[in-house]
Every structure is written in structure tokens, then in C-alpha cells.
């Protein structure tokens, strides 16, 4: 009886595929490079218990116990007082812009009240936009403060019963007081979905022409590179906007995500973000030699976008080098803009620091695309 298939034919095909793969250098590099690069990147970057989040302090009492409490917070590793001591106004606006995740306030006469046993307050304001970023730190804060006070002032507070709480730690979760994850995730998804679809669609724009042979005809006709680029990009900006509409409506109806700021500011930033992405996609399609390569390059960009932009994991909780990579990704800035506008009610001035990086990115990839576009077939 005849076999349904022949092993030798399978072997022949496998050998052929392997030879082709080996000749296709980029694909080969990607197959090996993606797992290595991304495992090392994300193995270190993923951090569900983020430490060293930037913190600003407002200190109105400079006694030894105040200092001990700040030192205790710093030693706990959850807080990084790199932002230093600030005035109230400065600290609040840093929190609004996302430059710090916490503001710690030690009020006047803190130490005197403590010694008298009046249970003075310490105020800790946290940016709870991303609930995961702050929950562990806030959970352990009472213990940190109690220990710091006990160590520093154990003798003077002899009447204090062991384990008792000499200080009243007041927590304010700002921007997302109930810690609803969807408030953080849904605006983030807006950026993620736009990144995914717009880049992929435009990345195939030219490679498809090359693969189908239509590029020869296109080049023989009087269309200029810039015209082809714009002509191929603009429809996808339109596409992106349809997606924006769907996501914003869903955010409102299904998840009741608030819209604190101005829709105009949000949409303006969104145009820029989509433009940056489709231009990147087009640039990929000038670099890739086949649709397969274009897809691989898209995913190579897509994974760090999701993992290092602050969408999956709190941005400030990542190690410094991961944050540097993250800053170069449009999604990082777009997420800050979307969260800033939707949850914090930010205006144009608040989002501006994240708008210009998008512009720089856009111009850079656009320039590469124009330089890379081949005017001839050789």
C-alpha cells in the first residue's frame, strides 16, 4: 500500500526551506535575535514590585525624627528622593506631569506634636493612575514609618506601647482614587492598538509592491518617492482615527473611563502619534525586502513598545537603561499624554513635554524613509 506522503519529499522541502532561510540574512538574524534580545530586555525590565519610584518631599519640620522618617522611606527602596525637597506648588505639578510618583509632606511642628503624643499626620500623595505601581509601596508604608520613629526616638517616647502607631499616615491616591485598573489599561490600549495596526499596515505597503512585481510599473510611472510615501500613509491615518473613535467610545460606555481634560488636546496628540507610527511603518517597508521581513521588523518594534512604554509595567519602576529605551518609543510618550489628558485633566502645557519627542521621532523616521526609498530597481 502506498504511503500518503514521502519522507524524502518532506526532507527535500525542509532542506530547501533551511537554505532559503540561511540566505535570507535578516530573517535568520531575527529568528535568533528576537528571543535573545527580548528575553534579556524583558527578563530584567518586568517588575511587578517597582522600587525606587521618584518622590518629592515637602518638609516643614527639620528635626531628627523627620529626617529619620525620610531616611527610613529611602532605605525601604520604594522611594527615591532624587527629586529633592520642593515647595508645595512645585511638588504638585511634578506629580501632575508624572515626573514623580509620590509627594511626601511632613507638616510644621511635626516633631513637637510627636513628642507630646498628639499623633501628628504625615501626608503621602501617590499617583495612582497605574494602581500596580504604587500598591506595594503604600501597603508597607505604615510599618516603615513606625520603625523609623521607634529607632530614632525610642527613649523619649517611653510611654509608647510596643507596636503602637505614634504617627497618623494619611494616604491620598490621586487621579484614580479607587485604583481601578481599567482606568489605566484602557487609555493605554488606545496607544497599543494604534501602534500595532498602523505600523503593520504601512509596513506592508511597499514590500507588497515589491513582492508582486507592481513596483516596476509604479517606478516607471511619474510618481515621486514623497508622493508615494504620503499617498500610502494618509489612508492609514484615516484608519487610525476610526480606531480612536471606537476605543474612546468603548472607554466611555464600557469602562466609564473619565475624560477629565480636553478632547481637542487628546485628538491633536493622537494625530501626531498616528502619523509617527505610519511613517515608521513606511520606513520599515523601505528597509524590508519581503512582507515576511516587514512583519518581523514590526513585531521587533512592537514588543518593546508594549513592555517598555509603561503600558504593561510601571515606567518609573524599570531600571534606568530600560527607561532610556522606553523614552525613544512613541508609545511611551503617547501613554503619558493619554493618561495625562483623560485621567489628570492635563492641558496642552502639561502634555507638551511628551509632544515634542513624538515630533522628533516622526521627522527622524520620515527622513530615513525618504533616504532609503529606491528610485531604481537596482
Amino acid at each position, binding site marked *: 500500500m502506498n504511503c500518503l506522503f514521502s519522507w524524502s519529499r518532506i526532507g527535500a522541502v525542509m532542506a530547501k526551506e533551511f537554505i532559503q532561510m540561511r540566505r535570507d540574512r535578516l530573517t535568520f538574524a531575527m529568528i535568533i535575535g528576537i528571543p535573545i534580545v527580548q528575553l534579556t530586555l524583558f527578563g530584567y525590565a518586568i517588575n511587578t514590585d517597582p522600587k525606587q519610584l521618584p518622590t518629592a518631599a515637602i518638609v516643614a519640620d527639620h528635626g531628627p525624627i523627620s529626617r529619620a522618617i525620610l531616611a527610613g522611606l529611602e532605605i525601604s527602596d520604594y522611594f527615591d528622593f532624587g527629586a529633592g525637597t520642593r515647595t508645595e506648588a512645585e511638588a504638585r505639578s511634578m506629580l501632575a506631569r508624572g515626573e514623580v510618583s509620590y509627594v511626601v509632606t511632613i507638616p510644621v511642628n511635626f516633631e513637637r506634636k510627636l513628642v507630646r503624643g498628639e499623633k501628628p499626620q504625615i501626608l503621602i500623595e501617590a499617583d495612582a493612575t497605574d494602581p500596580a505601581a504604587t500598591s506595594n509601596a503604600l501597603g508597607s508604608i505604615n510599618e516603615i514609618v513606625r520603625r523609623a520613629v521607634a529607632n530614632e526616638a525610642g527613649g523619649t517616647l517611653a510611654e509608647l506601647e510596643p507596636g503602637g502607631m505614634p504617627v497618623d499616615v494619611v494616604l491620598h491616591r490621586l487621579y484614580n482614587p479607587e485604583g481601578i485598573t481599567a482606568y489605566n489599561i484602557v487609555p493605554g490600549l488606545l496607544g497599543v492598538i494604534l501602534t500595532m495596526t498602523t505600523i503593520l499596515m504601512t509596513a506592508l505597503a511597499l514590500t507588497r509592491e515589491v513582492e*508582486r512585481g*507592481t513596483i516596476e*510599473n509604479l*517606478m516607471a*510611472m*511619474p*510618481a515621486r518617492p514623497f508622493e508615494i510615501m504620503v499617498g500610502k500613509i494618509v489612508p492609514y491615518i484615516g484608519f487610525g482615527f476610526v480606531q480612536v473613535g471606537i476605543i474612546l467610545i468603548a472607554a466611555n460606555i464600557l469602562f466609564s473611563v473619565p475624560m477629565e481634560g480636553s478632547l481637542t488636546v487628546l485628538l491633536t496628540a493622537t494625530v501626531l502619534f498616528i502619523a509617527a507610527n505610519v511613517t515608521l511603518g513606511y520606513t520599515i517597508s523601505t528597509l524590508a525586502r519581503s512582507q515576511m521581513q516587514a512583519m518581523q521588523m514590526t513585531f521587533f518594534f512592537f514588543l518593546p513598545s508594549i513592555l517598555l512604554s509603561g503600558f504593561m509595567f510601571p515606567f518609573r519602576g524599570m531600571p534606568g537603561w530600560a527607561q532610556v529605551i522606553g523614552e525613544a518609543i512613541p508609545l511611551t510618550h503617547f501613554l503619558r499624554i493619554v493618561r495625562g489628558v483623560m485621567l489628570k485633566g492635563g492641558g496642552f502645557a502639561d502634555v507638551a513635554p511628551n509632544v515634542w519627542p513624538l515630533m522628533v521621532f516622526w521627522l527622524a523616521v520620515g527622513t530615513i524613509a525618504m533616504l532609503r526609498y529606491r528610485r*531604481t530597481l*537596482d
Partner: protein
Amino acid sequence: MSGEIIVDIKGLTKRFGDKTVVDNVDLTVNRGEIVGFLGPNGSGKTTTIRMICGLLRPDAGNGTCLGYDIRTESEKIKLEVGYMTQRFSFYEDLTIRENLDFVARLYALKPRAKFVDSTLNRLGLSNRQHQLAGTLSGGWKQRMALAACVMHEPQLLLLDEPTAGVDPKARREFWDEIHELTSEGLTVLVSTHYMDEAERCHRIVYIAYGKIIARGTVAEVIAASGLHTIVVRGGDTAALARKMKTLDGVEQVAPFGNDLHVVGLDPVLLEKEVRGAIAGSGATAAEDATSLEDVFIRLMTSSEDNFTSAGGRAS
């Protein structure tokens, strides 16, 4: 024919890696002419045509097309040239009409609908205008491609094997169309592997291994080859063919049905040898005109010899 030069190239050379694919090619095409571009597979026809319309950069040589420099003014050349690629390269996922619309837009033809409609009518594509180009048969695809590249009323048509895989009737219509267009002042450079099509050209250029080795009218090319043909009719064709191949002065022997075309360079020797060979076989022999195909086959084999012997000497 006004004699105005439309294509004028000199010393055109193209290398891919260390392989010289087009080697020092000179070519002129005058207004209103149909010039046939012939040569074996891989001889550099497509590459030459691509350089003329600016799709490839020549490694050496220069020239003009419609008075524009082929190296620096390809943008202008593209506006006035219609290039039909060897492989169908319109969008298979668009309809005929959508493809033509796209072309009309690229050339900024106004009013667009009128240009598209008249092109569709002229080439008999109106009934099929809403059919996806990818679902057309080979012949209809060629017609569509021709329609698309003549729509903007170019001065020069570069056709790269426009009738490959097209049925004889469609081919005839295709050539009638081309002749009609040239009578209106169009100039055509067309590559083909069909002898009957070569015979429909005003002039032919024969390229092998990137070098032009014959050119002129069909009669001139045949005469220049110096070949003479004797047609042998009747007898045992296969046995005679085997015998003929061993004779002195016989270059080629090719059966055509019951006929045998015997080709050689020296008419006297050829006549003598052939007559001797058929004696007593019941076959008759008569001198006949040498066909273009015989000339081309002779050109192909001799250029191959030159090529291999040149290579042998070099190594």
C-alpha cells in the same frame, strides 16, 4: 518617418556583480519606427529597456530618450514614455477600470473619466472594465497593460514581450493596434521571441550576451548572415536529417513537417553535398529563401561559440 531620433544611446553597459549583462550597446530609434529587440533568454533585453526608461542606472555609457538624458532626466522621460513590463505588473486586486483610473491620476489626465472610457473602448475592454485584473486571462491582461501604457498618449512605447502567451488572433489585433498607433506618430521598441512579430517590425536589433550582433531590416539581417537554404522534400525525413548533419558545409538541419530545411554558408558546396546525399532516396531538393529563424539560430550558436572560446582563452 521624419527621421527625428527618439532613442539615442551609446556604449550602454550594465553589470550585476561581476557579470556584464549589457555590454557597450549602441542603439538609435527614429520617430515612427517599430524596432524589434530580439535575443535569447538572459541576453539583456529587459535590462536595456529598463535603462532607457530610467529604472536602472547604467554603469557606463550615456544617451538620450526623447531628448532627455537617461541618467539625469528620468522624471521627464517617464512622463512621455509608456513602458509595458515583461511580467504583468498592474494591481491584480483592482478592476481594469480602477487600474486605468490609477494610471490616469498618476499622469494627471483630464478629464479623467473621458480618457479612461475612450481607452477602454478603443481596446475593447469596456465590457470587462469591472473585472478584477487578477482574474483576467493572460491575453486580456496583456491588452489591459497595453491600454494602460498608451492611455497618456506617450511618444515612445517600450514593450517587453507584450504578446508572450497570447493567442494568434489577439496577437494579430495587438500588432494591428501598434501599427495604427505608430501611424499616428508613436515610436515603438518591442522585445519578442516570435519570428512573425520580428517580421512585422521596420527594423530589428539582435542582442546576445549583452552585445548587439546584428541589426537592420529583416532582409538586411538575412542577407548579412550569408546563409543559404535548401528545402528537401519527401523520402525518410528522419534518416535524411541524420545524414545531412554530417555533411560538409551544412550548418543547420531542421525538420518542418515533411520538409527538411538545410542551411549552409557556401551555396555551391551546400548544393553539391545535399544533391549527393539524396541521390536514390526519392526526395527532391530546391533552393529557398533563408528564414529569419534560421538566421537567429545561427546567431545564437555562433555567439555561444565566441563566448565560450573567449572565456576559455581568458582562463
